[in-house]
């Protein structure tokens, strides 16, 4: 009789303990949370310089890129690049067409200016309510003036967090 009472007490104690452990685990699980925003969370377009015969080209003049903001003032997107074969530029969140002013300044401080227009569709991108809102883009068209730039072409039309591959091939005129 005493033995069976003892067993019942042990069983009850065991069930209570197990309940407490599961309760603690459950509350622990619900209390702990992690924020997994992507580390690489900037959306940039990649440009690669190529010669007419599709060989990698190098920027021989110093290049600056400007754009015009909503208030009418200019802002610098790329500062004093030289000797580059690739570079990256920002892309607007939701403007249907970005206008970019490329300045190429040679050793004699002579500047050649070109304008590039990039048309795109903007796609809202969501990771989590804990991560900043961002936009991905689908490039639909690109055109330019032709002072220093010979031509420009879209090579990858989807712009997301991956800027390791180029979205544009930029062909510059040679002045030998």
């Amino acid at each position: 009789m005493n033995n069976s009472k003892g067993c019942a007490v042990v069983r009850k104690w065991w069930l209570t303990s197990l309940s407490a452990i599961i309760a603690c685990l459950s509350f622990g699980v619900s209390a702990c949370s992690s924020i997994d925003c992507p580390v690489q969370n900037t959306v940039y377009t990649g440009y690669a310089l190529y010669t007419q015969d599709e060989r990698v080209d190098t920027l021989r003049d110093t290049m600056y890129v400007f754009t015009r903001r909503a208030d009418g003032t200019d802002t610098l997107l790329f500062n004093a690049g030289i000797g580059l074969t690739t570079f990256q530029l920002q892309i607007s969140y939701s403007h249907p067409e970005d206008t970019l002013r490329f300045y190429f300044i040679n050793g004699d401080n002579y500047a050649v200016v070109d304008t590039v227009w990039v048309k795109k569709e903007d796609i809202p991108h969501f990771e989590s309510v804990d991560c900043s809102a961002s936009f991905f883009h689908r490039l639909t068209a690109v055109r330019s003036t032709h002072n220093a730039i010979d031509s420009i072409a879209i090579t990858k039309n989807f712009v997301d967090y991956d800027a390791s591959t180029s979205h544009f091939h930029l062909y510059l005129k040679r002045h030998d």
Partner: protein
Amino acid sequence: MTLRHLISTCISSVTISLLLLLTASSTTQAQGLKLKMFSLVPDSIPMMRGFQVSFDLFGFCQRQLSDYGQYEGALRLNLHDQWFPIVEVGYGVADHTNDEVTGLSYKTKAPYFRVGMDFNLLKKKHGPNRLYGGFRYAYTNYKVDLWRTNYPDPTWQWDTGFGVVGEQYSQHWLEGVLGIDAMIVGPLHLGWSVRYKRRIAHSDGVVGKTWYVPGFGIWGDTRLGGTFNVIIDI
């Protein structure tokens, strides 16, 4: 060795062999009898042992204390106190408005269901308390409203809106369950369950990822979840 000695040894061997044979034969007969008797005793516990209905208090409290949670009930069939086929049905709600850091809002509400089986892991299966191990298959189909108040593009400074309405999502997932059910009084039981969840298929629409999934919880947060159930035997 004399002839008399040889005869004596032979008689002894035959006697011992006969004795052994008799013993073996009687043991086998006894075992056979026992087996026969065991097989004759019928199982006094019926296969159908009734139903249990339960309500999850954890999801309910979660909804009251935070901006997401679920209301969930379950119907469990008791087969021989060993197997428990179960259907869980719930309604998940999230209403996260204007996040203080990112400014994002996320709204969804949708039903979900889980079906599966629990197994009583206790040695004494017919007692009032149970320790369960089990699995679930779950599915939900839900729409999300997702938006952010207008904000300026950091470079161009154009005002930028961000939002989608009625974006369609769906998800299938599996859960491994470990639970406990303790009798409190009469037909009233209380029980806990801890669950390990794995998404097996999903559709996330065009905006990227999901946040709160009805019945699953916050996606990407943790693979563990739990319930605290009020259970009634019927």
